Structures are given as structure tokens and as C-alpha cells.
């Protein structure tokens, strides 16, 4: 399929280096009009996929960050109470007419999900960390994703003017329902291999040379093989690369001291810091050509 290569290219232009499987997933997502569920460890670039996708389609990115206790008024719509109260105060007439007035579009506050289905141009809807929301929200979301319509008791049913490109991400802190999983295309985002990671570094960090990027990617790969509690993701790699570039490093072997001091960009718990001692870091660095 041609569109697959085109997608990979377009993603690369927007700064996201995708593997061919992800490109397939995105081309399927458009062909079958299904949401895409991305799972993977924290910091492997799940959210970035949605951002890059919005960039590719040159459309708006609407993001809904999930958390426990998320409800309809935070995700779908809310009435503008202050305005409603003012309108009631100002109005001196019969109750019926004011009721129609204050429960109209003018007093409606759009929240991400409603916004996403009312755009003229289909936006990218990113539902981030869906596993943090509770089961009730998941059930509600399922309904929205299958019908793409919303009913507001005071206003009636609102149908989607355009079907958004939906991307869901999950860190796997909670098991998602089978129904939701079945509706979605699934892609597991893994840590990139050395070659891809070095390309990512070059694409994202200005001033990172090809040889340094490759060294950094190899080093990070070595660190990931250690038994760490929190394995560094791509985001951490980029932080570290930015730090090294900022310190004007050209070759990791020349600046062992700086390498050791900047490892805090990668290692985020006390336990892991204890494990990644100077000797271990030296050993990994030794293997990096």
C-alpha cells in the first residue's frame, strides 16, 4: 500500500519517526474509521503519535487527559452557571421563556469530547491515559465512540458533524474492558531499536550529530538491559541528549565524568541510582563503540 509509506514520511516530517507497523496502524485507522488504542511503557512516545498525527492532517488536536473521577461535566459539556444566573436575574418575565433561553447553545460550555464531534474539519481526539479514568467513564466513552452522538437533556441530541480521528493511550495501570479493546485497533508501542532511537534524537534535538546520537542510543539501550525499576523511555533519552548537547559534548568517551553526572536525566529512583553505579555505567559505556 502506498499510503503506508506516505504516512511514515509525513510523520517523519512532523518529527515523529514511526516504524512500519505503526504506519500500517494509522493507515488502517483511516480506512476502517476505528479508534487506535496505543499501549506501552511510560515515555515511549504514545502521546506524541497523536500530536504528529494532528500535524500530518494539519488539523486541531483536542486532548482529554483522564483521571479518576472524571465525569460528564468535565469531558462533554457544562452549562455556564454564572451567565445563567445573571440572565435569570436580568429577566423579569414568565418562567418558560427564560428556561428556553438559558438552556440554549449560548450558555453551553464545550468540553473536549463535545468539541471533537462538532468541528467542521475532523480533529485528532487524544484520550490520554484512559486507564486512569474509572469504569463508568469507559462505558460512556464506548457509547460515544460507536454512535458519535451526544444527548443533552435540555437541548436534545447532537450528532457529529465530522468523525474525529481518535487515539487512546494507556499505561496499563488498570485492565481496560474487552468491549473497548475490541472496538479499537491495537498497537503496542515498544522501546525503539538503536537505529530508530538515534534517528529520533537527530530529529528532535538540534545540534545532535549522527555519531553522538548513535552513541547515546547505544548507551541507553545498554542501560535498559540493566534490571532497573523504571526503565528510561524515549522522553528520558531526549532529555539526556539535550543535556549533553547543551554541555557541548561531541563524544561520550571523552567526557566520562559528564556522562556520569548527567545520568540523572535517565534514572529517576533512588533504588535505580544505587544500581547504576559508576562501574556499571563505565561497563556499558565501554561497550558503546
Amino acid at each position, binding site marked *: *500500500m502506498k499510503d*503506508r509509506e506516505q504516512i511514515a514520511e509525513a510523520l517523519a516530517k512532523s518529527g515523529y519517526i514511526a516504524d*512500519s*507497523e505503526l504506519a*500500517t*496502524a494509522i493507515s*488502517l485507522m483511516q*480506512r*476502517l474509521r*476505528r479508534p487506535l488504542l496505543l*499501549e506501552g511503557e511510560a515515555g515511549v512516545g504514545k502521546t506524541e503519535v497523536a500530536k504528529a498525527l494532528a500535524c500530518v492532517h494539519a488539523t486541531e488536536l483536542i486532548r482529554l487527559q483522564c483521571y479518576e*473521577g472524571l465525569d460528564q*461535566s468535565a469531558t462533554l459539556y*457544562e*452549562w455556564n*452557571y454564572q451567565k*445563567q*444566573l445573571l*440572565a*435569570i*436575574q436580568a*429577566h*423579569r418575565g414568565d*418562567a418558560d421563556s*427564560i*428556561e428556553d433561553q*438559558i438552556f440554549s447553545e449560548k450558555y453551553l460550555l464545550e468540553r473536549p469530547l463535545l468539541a471533537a464531534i462538532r468541528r467542521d474539519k475532523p480533529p485528532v481526539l487524544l484520550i490520554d491515559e484512559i486507564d486512569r479514568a*474509572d469504569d463508568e467513564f469507559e462505558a460512556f466513552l464506548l457509547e460515544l465512540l460507536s454512535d458519535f452522538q451526544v444527548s443533552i437533556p*435540555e437541548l436534545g441530541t447532537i450528532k457529529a458533524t465530522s468523525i474525529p480521528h481518535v487515539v487512546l493511550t494507556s499505561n*496499563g495501570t*488498570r*485492565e481496560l474492558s*474487552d468491549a473497548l*479493546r*475490541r472496538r*479499537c*485497533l*491495537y*498497537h*503496542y508501542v515498544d522501546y525503539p531499536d538503536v537505529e530508530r532511537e538515534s534517528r529520533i534524537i537527530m530529529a528532535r534535538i538540534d545540534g545532535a550529530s549522527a555519531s553522538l546520537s548513535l552513541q547515546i542510543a547505544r548507551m541507553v539501550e545498554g542501560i535498559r538491559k540493566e534490571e532497573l525499576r523504571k526503565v528510561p523511555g524515549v522522553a528520558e533519552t531526549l532529555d539526556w541528549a539535550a543535556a549533553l548537547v547543551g554541555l557541548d559534548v561531541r563524544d561520550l568517551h571523552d567526557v566520562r565524568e559528564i556522562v556520569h553526572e548527567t545520568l540523572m536525566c535517565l534514572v529517576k529512583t533512588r533504588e535505580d541510582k544505587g544500581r547504576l553505579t559508576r562501574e556499571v555505567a563505565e561497563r556499558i559505556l565501554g561497550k558503546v563503540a
Partner: protein
Amino acid sequence: MSCCGTAPAFDEIDEVSRLVSGKLAAFLRTLRDNGFAVGLAEGQDAASLMTSGYAARPGLLRSALKHLFSARKSDWEKFDGIFDAFWLGKRVRSRSFASGSATSANNPSLKSLQEGAQQGGSQSATDQVPSADDAPASQDGEGRMEGASRAENLIEVDFRKLADPEQVAQAHEAAAQLAKIMRTRLTRRDLARRQGHRLDLRRTIHHNISHGGVPISLVKRRRKDKPLRLIVLLDASGSMSLYTGVFLRFIHGVLDEFREAEAFLFHTRLAYVSGAMKEKDTARALDRLSLLAQGAGGGTKIGESLQTFNRWHAARVIHSRSVVMIVSDGYETGDARLLGREMAALAKRCRRIVWLNPMAGWEGYAPEAKGIKAALPYVDLYAPANTLKSLAALEPYLARL
């Protein structure tokens, strides 16, 4: 959108030859046999993909179908093997299971998998069903239900009297099921019970339009309680060895189903095992744990283990709605006074301490061990836990918290 066993009807797709659609239907059946949740809609999407040119390039088709049919990481990982076996006729490398886990000793699920495939009548599928990999997935399907129904007569049998490996497996299954049920009930009761007083502006305004917008009758919103957090400390010492298997399964179920749960294992030292237990595949989780659990032998230092817990973990894992569940026989080989002190410290932190003692269910047992004597004053519920029934009896207690 029911996911019934029959093959999707492809009448409307003329381009797909009868042969290909038949083969696709067989493939869907193979996937279902392997625990994939594949519905009619997916089958139709797959057919339309095949007509639109994907079928000509197997590599691409595999990648496309993988996204379409997989729903979780375990599916994702085994899909390629199943696809290759089915469409390309390659043999699948079988992953060997580490021996010593509770369920891998005899592998009934594999047998039932093959039987199921034969009953399905798709000859092409049976030959090439990949081996060991898929055992856990099929347990999710038929295997588990079988276990639950047969387990009824096991419900009052003491765990240590279960000898037959099949019975043990059933008890494990039932323990995992029980953990699941407990969770659902707990949350439902939570909903029914919820109280709180937050103003619901939306309804208030709606109700008070007739008063000219002056909010006279207020509408309140009831708040949902935070879910209970369960922290399990399991004694994995030699004296408990007959019970650890069942409780590990129970804990695995609890971690899987409770929104908030943490697990620790202790014998002469304390180990944080939530990470290993989060593994969805039970057999693999238990394998990872067996390393930790085998450190037993020297005896039980409950006091020291609790000290470690209080010092390093308590602040992080315990909040105001936490219940600490200690599963131990209370045979302390360390200092019993230390145990008393640490229990006092723990009692100050959490809402309830439940102590489950498998031996308390034995006839003529009295809590005479000095460890348990030192700990009992701080325990809110001291209960036997040597049968499935006694585990089930805990649920109403936990629901009241």
C-alpha cells in the same frame, strides 16, 4: 454486537471468493480458540481489507490483521505465530515453561484447546495451533468456567487436604474468581452507600427558575467514596507452604481486580511483589514469584518484616482507606516484642488490620504462639482462612469499611 461462534456472512462482499472467505472464517475461529475477542465487525473489516489489495502481500496483511484483531499485549505478541502457522504453514516455536509453577505441572488447558479446535470442525486449524504459548489464554475462556462449577464441592475442604493436582488447580481458580467477585460487590456497595454534600449547580438552577433565579431549594450532589485499598502481606515461610499456593492465586486475583491493591511477601525478609503480580499471565506471575517465595526455610521473622514495611513502604502504600491483610500462622522465630511494637505502629497508620490464620480453622487450635499473642491486641479481625468458604466470609466485613 454479540460475538457468536459462527463465521461472519460475507454475502455482501462479492469479490472475496468462497474459498478465501472460508479460510478467513477458519482463521477467525482459530483466533477465538486462542482467546482473542473477535466479533463480527472485525471479520467484515478483515474481509474488506483482503479485497482491497492487502491479501497479495502476506507481510502487510499480517501487520494489518494484527492491529485489527489484537486487543492486548499478550494477543499482540502471539499473533504473528498464529498467523504464520495458519496462513504460511510454518511451525511455531514453542516457548518452554519454567517448571515448578503451580499450574504448569499438568497442562489441561492445552488439551482442552486442541479438543475445542477439533469440535470446531476446522481441520486446517487444528494441525497448526501453536503449542504451549496459548495455554493461559484459553483458560480465560472455557477452562475457567468449568473450574468454577466443579469447585463447589471443594469449598469447605481445607487447602492442605487438597492432594490431586487437578483439585489444587481448581481451588486456585476458585480463589482467583472469589477475589474478582469480592471486588465487584465492594464497588457496588460503595455506590449504593455514597453520601456527601456538594452543591449541584446545574440542577439547582433548573429547579429555581421559578423563583426568579434565587436559589432557594438547593440540589445536592452525592459524592462517591474512594475505593478501599487492600494491602496484603503474605507469609511464605516453610510452615505456611501448604497454603501459599492458594493465597498467591488469591492475591493475584485481588491485584488484578481491585483498583488499588498492593502485595508483599515475607519469610525472613520482606519483598514487594506487586510488580511481579501485575503480570496478567498467572503462570508467569507465579513463576516470577516462586523465586521470592523459595527463600524460606530459616523461619519467619514477622517482626523484622513488618519493621521493614513500616520503615520503607507504609508511607507510600497506606492511606486513610487502607486495609492491611496479613496472612500468616503467627509462628515468629524472631523477637515477639518487636512484632508487638511494629503491629502497634502499623495499627496507627491504617484503618483496619485483618489477620488471616489458616490454622485458626483447625479443630482444637488456640492462638498460643508467642508471635500471634503479641500481635492480636492490634488486630481488628482475626479469622481462619483455610477453606474457600472462610475466604468468602471476609467479603461482607470488607464491604462495611
